[in-house]
């Protein structure tokens, strides 16, 4: 589980389990969902007894290894705080997203919840006044100093401006996108880790000529291809421009020559066979499974796949950042903090809730986080970890120390993952032009910006 767009997570977690009741909604109406606002009973009330306090925690980490990781944190926190009992409620990601906003607005909201960066989750909860600002706790526990840039969790109090303002959440881990490579295949092709983008491109051609899939990509799920677009977009843009566009600052347009160039390049690559043939009809999981099984030279993705690849490919897999146009430059990379932890605005135990989050964030837990395959926000030793995990940590440090980390495109609007996801399929399937691609994205973007003011 990862820092993906909300749908991406949705897809990963609940591919099969579907609410066919949605169809009932189509005919029966949305009303039942909204009626739940008043009827859904909140979690058990925090019993404030003399020596016993219950902290109600809602999180979306319903799958291992994270599920156990959080269970371990909870047990350790209870042990360190006698009299405190943690009542944990965890749900699969899509169930979670559908209910967390409702339970936060119920009469007895949980004390601590996980959210999701962006307008669709965090933004609307802040706009509705459901989350507490954490500035004072940040000062007390020094999160900003340790984690670095927390802009993606900062909002104006009215939830209308994102990227600056009050701090509303923190995360204990992060992810970064880059290129996973198959070491054996690289050796077979007689190439090394490319130093420039030109070298990278010529490696793709070599792989293609040798009958090896150059870049594995399964984009049937409609979001992974977007990140491949962003890999190319990052070459031709600056972090500031991209961040301003995503956070809706300064009226930046998407329809630029740089974005057109990136879109055209992705289209050309797909047509040239540098990307899995039939990528838009191939499920994300099967493309990654194929890469893990030794097929393909590269797989451009996020570090949420590190665990999978490390387990299946052992020492045969490595990770590098997409090389820059000019050798020696530090490239831009897409990445972000993981699902953030928030405190309910109406929690009666805010100090305890903050202590709990501070515990999860503490340096003593960093090794456990790294072991589960994630990049902890705290510094940690990479001794005795699988090489690919060490690679990802090094990449993260390089990029963040040069302030070259950029957010995901789909953060720009609540519907951007759907919009840019569908538009990217148009490029990969040779169905639309680069001009149509940027126009589609820009028109949805502009429509949303209008509703913000």
């Amino acid at each position, binding site marked *: 589980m990862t820092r993906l767009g*909300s*749908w991406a997570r949705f*897809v990963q977690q609940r*591919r*099969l*389990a*579907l609410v*066919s009741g*949605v*169809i009932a*909604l*189509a*005919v*029966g*109406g*949305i*009303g*039942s*969902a*909204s*009626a739940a606002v008043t009827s859904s009973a909140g979690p058990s009330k925090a019993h404030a007894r003399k020596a016993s306090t219950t902290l109600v925690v809602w999180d979306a980490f319903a799958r291992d290894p994270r599920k156990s990781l959080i269970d371990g944190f909870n047990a350790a926190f209870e042990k360190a705080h006698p009299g405190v009992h943690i009542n944990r409620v965890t749900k699969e990601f*899509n169930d979670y*997203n*559908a209910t967390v*906003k409702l339970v936060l*607005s119920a009469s007895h909201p949980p004390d601590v919840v996980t959210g999701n960066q962006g*307008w*669709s989750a965090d933004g*609307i*909860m802040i*706009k*509705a006044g*459901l989350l507490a600002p954490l500035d004072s706790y940040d000062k007390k526990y020094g999160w900003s100093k340790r984690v670095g840039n927390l802009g993606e969790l900062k909002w104006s109090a009215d939830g209308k401006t994102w990227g600056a303002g009050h701090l509303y959440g923190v995360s204990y881990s992060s992810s970064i996108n880059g290129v996973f490579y198959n070491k054996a295949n690289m050796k077979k092709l007689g190439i090394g880790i490319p130093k420039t983008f030109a070298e990278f491109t010529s490696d793709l051609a070599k792989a293609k000529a040798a009958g090896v899939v150059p870049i594995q990509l399964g984009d*049937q*799920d*409609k979001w992974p291809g977007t990140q491949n677009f962003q890999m190319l977009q990052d070459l031709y843009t600056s972090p500031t421009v991209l961040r301003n566009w995503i956070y809706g600052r300064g009226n930046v347009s998407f329809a630029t020559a740089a974005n057109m160039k990136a879109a055209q390049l992705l289209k050309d690559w797909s047509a040239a066979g540098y990307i899995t*043939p*039939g*990528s*838009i*009809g*191939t*499920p994300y999981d*099967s493309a990654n499974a194929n890469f893990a099984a030794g097929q393909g030279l590269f797989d451009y993705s996020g570090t949420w796949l590190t665990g999978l690849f490390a387990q299946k490919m052992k020492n045969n897999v490595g990770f590098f950042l997409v090389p820059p146009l000019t050798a020696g430059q530090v490239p831009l990379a897409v990445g972000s903090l993981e699902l953030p932890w928030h405190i309910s605005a109406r929690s009666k135990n805010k100090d305890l809730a903050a202590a709990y989050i501070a515990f999860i964030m503490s340096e003593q837990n960093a090794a456990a986080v790294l072991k589960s395959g994630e990049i902890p926000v705290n510094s940690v030793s990479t001794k005795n970890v699988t090489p690919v995990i060490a690679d990802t940590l090094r990449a993260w440090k390089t990029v963040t120390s040069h302030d070259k980390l950029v957010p995901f495109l789909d953060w720009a609007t*609540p*519907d951007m993952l*759907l919009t840019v*996801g*569908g*538009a990217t*399929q*148009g490029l*990969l*399937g040779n*169905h*639309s032009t680069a001009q149509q691609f940027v126009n589609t994205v820009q028109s949805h973007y502009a429509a949303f910006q209008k509703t913000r003011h």
Partner: protein
Amino acid sequence: MSVVSIGSKSPAGGSLDPSEPPGTRFAPPARERIEAPPGEPRRIGYLYILPAFAFFGVFVLFPMGHSLWLSFTNWDGLTPAKWIGLGNYRGLVSDPEVRAAFGHALVLVVFYSFIPVTIGLLLAASLSRMRVRGMTFFRTVLFLPQVIAMVVVGVIWRWMYTPLGSVNALLRAVGLGSLQKVWLGDFRWTLPALGLVGTWVAFGLTMVLFLAGVQKIPTSLYDAARVDGAGPVREFFAVTLPGLRNEVVVALTLTILAALRSFDLIWVTTKGGPGNSSSVPALILYERAFVTNQVGSAAAIGMSLTLVCFIVVFLVTRLGERRST
């Protein structure tokens, strides 16, 4: 009947109180009988339907009314809703993506409904002329897709349609390798490919309905038609089709509704992709209600879809009635 008069003083039950004058006991029921002819429903009847109606009201009518109200508002699901009248509906009409989605639903109607009904009728017609050994077995096998949850169907077909999946393998095996495609990654073929899955699913239902219906048609009608020299085609239009009228109405209603409401198959396979080439109204409804915080607009799609469903069902039913007179 004494059963109908529970709650009033029943002549059959009588009163056990001996002090009560006999005349008054029988008077009220007698008057009721005069007012309401035998067999006419009495007011007490409403009491009997109350439990079911209360259930219906709470779980169907109220949410529907609430949806209708929501569809006139701009609501993100949390902050107070703002009344915008027909704004959401205007937005739907002017949104090319929504219009396209309704268009796709109509294409699916052909695959989910018209094709299965046609195949079912043809099969019923041919089976009405002959006996097939192992019919129960074939019926079970053909009905099987109906029993499988649509989500499972979607997962199965998603794999069959992958570039290296069994559909392409089959095409290669029979020498039609040139027709191989990335079925669910092709802007032109994805919707028909998904439609075929619907055909595969709905066909079992129509077939079972029609086969049962055919058995109900008196064989004397077939004998008479044959004596009069009717061939298979004539026999179909003169005997089988009229005899199956009610089954056809039921099959059309069920399958058209399934097509218009389709969500799970599309969600599991393509999410409306590639691009928006296979998006359907229910998919957009879901996205707006649960992803993009546009609950009012989602409700408007729901109401529009409901309206379309009502109209279609009304037309189909009328069609059946007109033929029967």
